């Protein structure tokens, strides 16, 4: 077996679908979503099987034997600087690989049904495969530049998929916003690499993990990497792109903006965790940012009306939990939550996709309701996801979320503030998720007549992934051996479950009989003004600055100084031109005058002895 295979299968899928798409453009022959989708899904399944092979191989080995490295070729080598293009598989990257290929396969399968009516499914599936290829590069890359390749590559795929329906400029704009905000974070990544290279002398992850840096340098590197993560994983201050990213097809939101790409920040922080542990200040920053993001986006989620936006803010909030885990040094718990979150959030997104599909692109939860009879499988699986995100035992979310909450108090880096904010976020999570669940599936129907009649359960190709993910959401929690040694752990566990139930009950009774549109607070719904502020400040500020620069410096200073130069030449020309009257006689006169003057000057010089003539 070859490690390269995991990466190559999606790449081949991308190439095959891409060429099929280009060929169909030439010939005009339409490709069905079944055709291209099965190629793409097959590629992902093969990749998943390869990953399982390594999983089996690893499970038979000791902890320190779980490492496979494969050097493919020397990438950049210049003087002392050397970066190899090599893949490295250890427990952490294997877990991520399993999530990407496993959940990825399911979402690919689901997409076959979801994109059935689309005009260019081959394009869609090639992008999806491209994304998986890049994501696998991200988690398997052995060096920082290799991770960066995947890091930017997933950003690219995300851009392409958000703006997939590119006739709509708003959607394209959302894609651009995602790409640019990611790039802002990427600058942090780049500079972190420069600093790391300057002080460590290598960009190989193993060398970085082993390196001991001065606390100052470690803090700077850690902060910069964390800044990069806030871009990719949608944390404060760079989180506003994720809700907009919901412009893409729903399976894309499930795969990229819930299960995989947005968790790459956690992956990166865990990768360089030895470096972060040298800089406790950075850890506390990460924890604070994480828990604040969790809380703020949970608040915003409570005021959303769009089903996908709720899930998007919920994702931001859950990612905040993961960063909180990293920030209190419990990287294991963070990664564990990545896995369980991948299951239940992908499930909920796909469920939402199923609902949207059934209602013909209706996304407002106040125009839904009572769908539990129309969509029984979707409803059932969605409830499983709901239970998981609330952290009800024995669903997977219970294990991972509670571990984070416990660690936020009891870890070496934890404290009460983090703990209370985490609990508050859990309460809000329970509230808005229950609100969503009740309004969509159980409350009285508020749908338009025609939509209601057409609403129907999705085909098997879409419900199958839902069922699979529901099972995973149920049992996912048992895949992790928690130490569970804390004495107070028990009481915190109970407390968090009680908090979740309180939130759920409150939402349930509030929205059970809801039959009109809720008047939400506009300020909260628009994202607490943060997005508005960015739009005002950067969205208008940058073009304004650009206009200002081009007007004041470029036009007035540069162009005018250029004009002045040309004017100088023209002016001196016109002055000299006036001597050229065109009359031979004037020329002759000038010749005589200047000749005489010259002769007089020469004679004078000879007389004064400046020029010696003869002896």
């Amino acid at each position: 077996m070859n490690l390269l295979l995991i990466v190559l299968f999606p790449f081949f899928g991308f190439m095959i679908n891409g060429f099929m798409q280009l060929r169909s453009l030439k010939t005009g022959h339409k490709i069905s979503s079944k055709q291209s989708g099965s190629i793409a899904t097959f590629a992902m399944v093969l990749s998943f099987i390869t990953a399982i092979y390594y999983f089996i191989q690893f499970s038979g080995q000791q902890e320190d034997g779980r490492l496979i490295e494969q050097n493919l070729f020397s990438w950049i080598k210049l003087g002392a600087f050397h970066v190899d293009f090599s893949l490295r598989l250890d427990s952490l990257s294997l877990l991520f690989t399993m999530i990407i290929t496993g959940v990825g396969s399911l979402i690919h399968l689901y997409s076959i049904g979801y994109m059935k009516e689309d005009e260019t499914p081959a394009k869609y599936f090639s992008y999806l495969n491209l994304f998986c290829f890049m994501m696998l590069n991200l988690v398997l890359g052995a060096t920082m530049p290799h991770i960066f390749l995947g890091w930017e590559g997933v950003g690219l795929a995300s851009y392409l998929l958000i703006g997939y329906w590119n006739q709509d400029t708003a959607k394209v704009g959302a894609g651009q916003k995602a790409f640019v905000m990611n790039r802002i974070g990427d600058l942090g990544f780049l500079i972190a690499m420069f600093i790391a290279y300057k002080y460590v002398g290598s960009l190989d992850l193993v060398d970085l993990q082993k390196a001991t840096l001065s606390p100052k340098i470690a803090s700077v590197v850690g902060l910069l990497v964390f800044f990069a993560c806030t871009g990719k994983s949608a944390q404060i201050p760079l989180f506003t792109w994720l809700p907009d990213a919901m412009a893409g097809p729903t399976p894309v939101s499930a795969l990229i903006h819930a299960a995989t790409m947005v968790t790459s920040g956690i992956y990166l922080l865990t990768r360089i965790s030895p470096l972060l542990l040298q800089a406790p200040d950075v850890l506390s920053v990460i924890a604070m940012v994480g828990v604040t993001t969790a809380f703020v986006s949970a608040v915003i989620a409570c005021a959303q009306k769009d089903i996908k936006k709720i899930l998007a803010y919920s994702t931001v909030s859950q990612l905040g939990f993961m960063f909180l885990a990293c920030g209190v040094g419990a990287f294991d718990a963070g990664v564990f939550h990545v896995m369980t979150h991948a299951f239940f959030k992908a499930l909920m997104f796909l469920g939402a996709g199923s609902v949207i599909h059934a209602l013909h692109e209706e996304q407002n939860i106040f125009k839904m309701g009572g769908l539990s009879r129309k969509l029984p499988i979707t409803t059932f699986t969605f409830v499983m996801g709901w239970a998981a995100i609330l952290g009800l035992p024995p669903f997977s979310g219970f294990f991972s979320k509670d571990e984070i909450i416990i660690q936020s108090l009891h870890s070496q880096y934890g404290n009460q503030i983090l703990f209370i904010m985490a609990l508050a976020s859990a309460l809000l999570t329970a509230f808005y998720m229950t609100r969503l669940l009740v309004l969509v599936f159980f409350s009285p129907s508020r749908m338009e007549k025609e939509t209601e009649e057409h609403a129907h359960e999705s085909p098997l190709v879409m419900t199958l992934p839902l069922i699979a993910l529901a099972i995973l959401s149920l049992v996912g929690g048992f895949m992790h051996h928690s130490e569970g040694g804390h004495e107070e752990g028990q009481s915190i566990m109970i407390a968090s479950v009680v908090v979740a139930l309180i939130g759920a009950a409150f939402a349930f009774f509030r929205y059970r009989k809801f039959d009109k549109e809720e008047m939400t607070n506009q300020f909260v719904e628009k994202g607490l003004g943060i997005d508005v502020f960015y739009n005002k400040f950067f969205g208008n500020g940058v073009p304004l600055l650009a206009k200002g620069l081009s007007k004041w410096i470029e036009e007035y200073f540069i162009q005018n100084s250029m004009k002045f130069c040309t004017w100088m030449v023209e002016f001196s020309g016109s002055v000299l031109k006036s001597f050229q009257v065109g009359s031979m006689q004037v020329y002759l006169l000038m010749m005589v005058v200047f000749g005489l003057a010259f002769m007089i000057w020469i004679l004078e010089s000879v007389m004064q002895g400046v020029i010696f003539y003869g002896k």
Partner: protein
Amino acid sequence: MENSQQLTALLIWPMLGSILAWFIPKASQRIYSLFISIVQFALVIYVAYPVITQTGQGLEQTLPWLSDLGIQLSLKLDSTSVWFVLLSGFVSFVVLGMKGQWYRRNTRLFSSMAFFLIFSINAAFLSSNLIVFYLSYEAVFIPMILMVGIWGSSTKANSVFRFFLMSFFGSILMLVSIFYLSYLYFLKTGIFSANLNDLLKLSNENSPAMLWCFAGFFLAFAIKVPLFPFHGWLKEVYVNAPAPATIWMSAILSKLGVYGFIRFVGPLFPEAILSAQGILLALAAFSVIYAAFLAIQAKDPKALLSYSSISHLGFVMLGVFSMGASAKTSAIVLSVSHGLTSLVLFYLYDLIVKRKEDVSLEAYSGLAKKFPILFVCLFIGVLASVSLPGTFNFVGEFLVLIHAYPVSALCTILAGIGVIFGAVYMLKFYQKLGFGVSSDAQVAEVAEDISGFDLIVIVLILALIIYFGFQPSLFLGGMTNV
């Protein structure tokens, strides 16, 4: 250094092509130009091959000319110049294959001028005598100005004049500096010489005179590249020039400035550069950001591409001014990758323009649906331009920045911000052209998707960009040992 007679062939062949072009019938000029330029490119590869493979080895050839005045026709192909010569050979071949009005109007003059241009570019890149370098550097203007003047768009007269004036202003000061340097050499040794190897003996002198000479050289090359306050001529000229001239200017002629810095200014005035390094790096970094801002607000797509060219050359200059062998190599790598990328972008943009009548950015939309393959190619070009990892540009930009960082962290970060803006304006460029709802009325009747020569060439270049993005060792290995 090996002594070789092949280097003159690189000059004689295009000169021959330039003369013979007048005897070729109008209809077969394109075939003729393609033939001459392909042979020229093959010749370049043949000559350059030993230089690339034998690391550190170069070719040298000296012909006597005006030896009493210290002017010899000494040609030198080493690991620095070889990439520029190769790039210009390749770009010229691609450019001459482009179809356009230059093959309909004054055709003979066009191909003659094109080969004269190649001749003078090669002479400039090969010459290691400063006077000969100056002569060829100036000779480049003649075909360039004619091209902009004859085949350019309507509002060209003023821009040509400014272009000429600014470039000439810079290079005439360089000529004075060259004379002064050889005079200094005369004072020292009693012999007039303008050979680089001789003049390098002056490089450890640290006098005000040397600083002035540095200023002369700096101005000439800074205008050519161009660096921030000297870029005023660029936009008008790029926008008004016909596509081949634009490509030549952004892909090759700007590199003439870069090459001048690497080849002459760096070795001749190390003291002056070190004493002004902070300012120079700041200028380079500021160029990046400033041009990016200009590109963000540009209405005309070609102006946007021109500004992006300035922005990327800012990165190159950052590498050049960082000094040190690795930084120099990085700058060369970025130069070559920028040459290839701007070739692709301007080429494809010209293809799009031919399919449209109106040329402001607002007038385009939804073309991706009409010309899907063209826009796939354009998208890869855009990605290369924003230096996404996996493209050749990333290798260059990454290497430049990582080597510039220890020299000046602040300037590196500033230039890094340019990376973000790069994404902003390049995506704007692509989206405005490609996405949105298309309006059929604007597209010309005959508009077809990219095909034939265009497609083959563009795919070839894109393949090169991606291949070198993963395997840049060809460029890095050959140059490390110098």
